[in-house]
Every structure is written in C-alpha cells, then in structure tokens.
C-alpha cells in the first residue's frame, strides 16, 4: 500500500490523554472522537488536518491508557499512518487491531511540519524531498494479522468456519 500526505509533527511521549482526553470517552462514535483529537495540544488540529495526512512522533508515541478511542480518533480524521521513533505497546496493538498503520523510523528531527512525504507501507520506504529512509520492518506476526484483515476479521472467520478450538 502506497500513501502520500502532509506531515503533522508531535514530539516525544504523546500520551493517549492528549490524543483523546478522557472527558470524551463517554462516546464510541468515531466522528465525535475525531473532533477532539489532540485537543490539549492544538484544539484546531481536527479542522486543519486533511484526509491522507500523516502524523510523525518522537519516542513512546501513544503511552498511557489502553483506550482504543485513541487510534479511532486518529483514523476518524482520515489519518492512515503514524510514524514514530517508538510506540507504547498497548497503543501498538490497538492501532493494528483498528487498521491504523504504524511505522517505526527515526525521521522526526529531519522533517519539517507540513512537508509532503510518500510511504510504501509494505516495504517501509519513506521518501521526502531527495531523502529516503527505510522504517523498521513490521513484525511478521503483525503482517500476517494485517493480511487477514485484523484480529476481529481473523476471529469472525474462525467462528464462521465453526472452529471452536481457535
């Protein structure tokens, strides 16, 4: 899968409380969650961001709570991908389970806010200007899961096949 989009930079340790503050967690509606995405850091972010834009983070992106509302809020804004130096582990699982792609690459310090980048998710190659960087490969087990359409599709298939051993 190939993506092209403008980048929005957020720094190190972007926690799920800033991705989507807990006061909005009474809702499970992606539209509502998207409207408040990154609100504590930049309340106008949901208005400024465009479909296909990409978030770039530093270390430990998605740390804190296990709220799956966080990847849902990001996806609701049409953002298909987050590239960061590293990800917090619960966010990492949640993102793939929800269909938000994540790539680990150390490009935060070299890229300008608003710059356009192109990314080949399957090879992990990230290009901007004259630069090209290869992201850390996605673990084979995660690739398998993605190819099956995520954890829930994997489960649905198993249940339809009547495989109660799962």
């Amino acid at each position, binding site marked *: 899968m190939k993506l092209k989009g403008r980048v929005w930079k957020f720094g190190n340790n972007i*926690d799920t409380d800033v991705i989507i503050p807990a*006061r909005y967690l009474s809702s*499970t509606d992606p539209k509502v969650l998207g409207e408040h995405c990154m609100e504590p850091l930049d309340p106008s972010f949901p208005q400024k961001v465009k479909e296909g834009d990409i978030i770039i983070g530093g270390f430990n992106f998605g*740390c804190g709570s296990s709220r799956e509302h966080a990847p849902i809020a990001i996806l609701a804004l049409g953002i298909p991908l987050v590239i960061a130096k590293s990800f917090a582990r*619960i966010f990492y699982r949640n993102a793939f389970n929800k269909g938000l792609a994540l790539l680990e690459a150390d490009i935060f310090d070299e890229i300008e806010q608003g710059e356009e980048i192109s990314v080949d998710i399957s090879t992990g190659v990230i290009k901007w200007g004259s630069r090209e960087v290869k992201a850390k490969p996605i673990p084979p087990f995660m690739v398998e899961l993605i190819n099956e359409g995520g954890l829930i599709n994997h489960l649905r298939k198993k249940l339809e096949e009547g495989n109660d051993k799962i």
Partner: protein
Amino acid sequence: MGMTITEKILAAHAGKNSVECGEIIEAKLDLCLANDITAPLSLEEFDKVGAKKVFDPERVVFVLDHFTPNKDIPSAENCKKIREFSKRYGISHVYDGGACGIEHALLPEEGLVVPGDVVIGADSHTCTYGALGAFSTGVGSTDLTYGMVTGKNWFKVPESIKFYCSGIWQKWVTGKDLILHIIGLIGVDGALYASMEYDGEAISKLSMDSRFAIANMAIEAGAKNGIFKVDEKTLSYIKDRGKRPFTIFESDSDAHYREVYEVDVGKLDLKVACPSLPSNVKDAKDLSDIRIDQAVIGSCTNGRIEDLAMAADILKNKQVASDVRCIIIPATPKIYLEAMRRGYLETFMKAGCIISPPTCGPCLGGHMGILAKGEKAIATTNRNFVGRMGHPESEVYLSGPAVAAASAIKGFIIHPSEVV
C-alpha cells in the same frame, strides 16, 4: 538457561515447557476485565464478530468504576448496555452501584485474581495484579473481545528487568515512592515492552498495599507487566479471598535479565512527580512555593486502607487549608467500611475533606474533581500528563498519601515532617 517468573507463567499457559524472549505465543486466559469506558467498544466488536457466547461467564469481569455514579446521559447509557450484555450472557461478576470499587483494588480484594494467573484487562493499570505473582497486562477493547470470546490471546514474551531492593524503609516512604524513584531513573519508556520484576529483602518487608502500588505503575515506565515473588504476605492475603486453586511460579536463579538495578530503599525520601510526565521526579523536600488548589487521595494506585491510614494519621486534629479541596476516595466498599470503623472518615470530615464514593473520577479528568485553567493538584494517582485532571493548562503533581495529606493542610507541596 533458567526462566523468569513471567516466562514460566506464559509457558504454562501456552502449554509449553519453555519460552524465549521475543517469541510469540498464544496463552490461555484466566480472567478478562473491562470497565465502563472500555467495555462499550468491546461489546460493539463482540456483536460484529457474531459471537454467541463468552468463553466462560465466570471469567469475564465488568467493573463500572470510571464515570460512575454516572456523570452524564452517554455514560449512563454505556453502563446500561453493559448490564444488559451481562444478563444476556450470564456474566455475574458485574460490579455496579454499591458493589462498585476501583477495579484494580477490587479484583484482588474479591479474590478474583490468584498467583500464577494470566489476566488481561481493557485498562492499562491491569498490571497491578503482578503484586500477587500473576502475569497481568492491559490491552485495548478489541484484544479484550478476542479474549472474551476465545479465552486466549497472543503475547510476545517480554524481556525482564530486575529491581533488587535492599535497605530499611524510612518513615512515610512507601511503594509509591519506590516506583516514582524507579520511573525517574529509567524514564517513561525505560521498560518499554519489558517485564519489571521486584526482589530483595526490602520487598519482602513491603505490605501488599505497597506492592499493588508498585505493580500498578509498571505501565508508567512503558512495561508490559510488573511482578513480585509469592511469599508469606501474598499467601496470607490470598488465603481467605482466593476464589480458585493456584500455582506458584518462581524465577530461576540463572534466569536471564536484560538489566538488573540495585536500589537501596534506605536512601529514598518522599518523592513527587512534577508535571507533565511521571518520570519528572523530585524529592518532596526540594519543592517549595508550589501552591495547590486540590489534593486527591485515592485511585487504583493509592486508595487502599494503608494509604488512608497514613493520610488520617497526618490529618488528625488538623485542618485542610481554606483554599484547598481535599478529596478522599476509598477505593472499594470494603476499604470505605474499614476506614469508617477505624474512625478515619470522621478524621477526614473534621479536617474539612470531601469523601467520595469509590470511583476513578478525577484521576483521568472524568468527573468528581476536575481542575480549572491554571489550577494545580497534588494527587496520589498515577498520571500527570497535560490536562489529565481537567483543563489543558491545569497541572498534576503525583505523590504518596503522606505528601498529599501534608500538602492539603499547608496549601502548598510540602514534606510531612513540616506538618506533624
């Protein structure tokens, strides 16, 4: 090569003799937990997959503790959905109304988690049960659905980091100060994806309440789990509570650790994590002129009886500063009752505190103690991220109960020796 306690528990639940770090395994689950903000998403996924039942209605637990007593119509609707789902699928472990307590204080107290378990919970502080010698970790709602339906989930076997703790505990210093010290030392991603294991004579001396507080904040260092050896204290805690038979696992002496840290707890003084990361840790005595508007004593980290005892000891015959709201949140109904029997509630009320029903409420900026723009709070909770307790320009300082109680009296952050 030997194995760590975490590796042994995961191997046993995957039906294997041994596992290696980094290996992906599928493990049987002993318990699946969700709360009133994570269960609704999980139930939506449950409907999507077309599941007809949960794997074992006795091993699925719902605790309606975050936005309860319900703060608004959507949160009330969410709780209603969980109650209806539980009735439909025969789930009896639903903690609601007067039975509700803060999940990670409640489940061990109810004996729902026993040593050697593998537990997943759609709440990041599920790692708390490591205090009982169980493997427990937080997951998202979708992973929880998978667990609820199949009774299994996949895990990458984590590397382990050992914290060997020796020395004599100083007055007022608790497990909270130790874990804040460790997070300050290794950083909020210092244990990313790893297991944090505690050992040493200073750990043997620690109460279960302090061990729960330490395991609880493993996630604040990015860890997958925090875990303790099962000893006499664990067994005496579990004796009259444990609802299931259990197996005790112990790390081998030649187990592999990515790193080993040695901590002399005798050198630890009371700690405060300053805004806006749990790793921004300073000694309470080095902070001055930080005026507070609110003190919160409670949460899944520090809302247990030992915490309330320490706060009551400091607040006895004292008054909360006139411009401070001091909110006390006993974590469970049993802790609430015990605090009442021991006279702590009277002490708190006479000191001018507010006593809240058990709820996660203010810790995550949900309700029952939200901060206005520019306000500051000292809290015995676990996160001090930007806007965590309310307005994005409010600030949270994290501490143990002694510093929080002393600061409530003075109106600024202070070491309890200045008050007592």
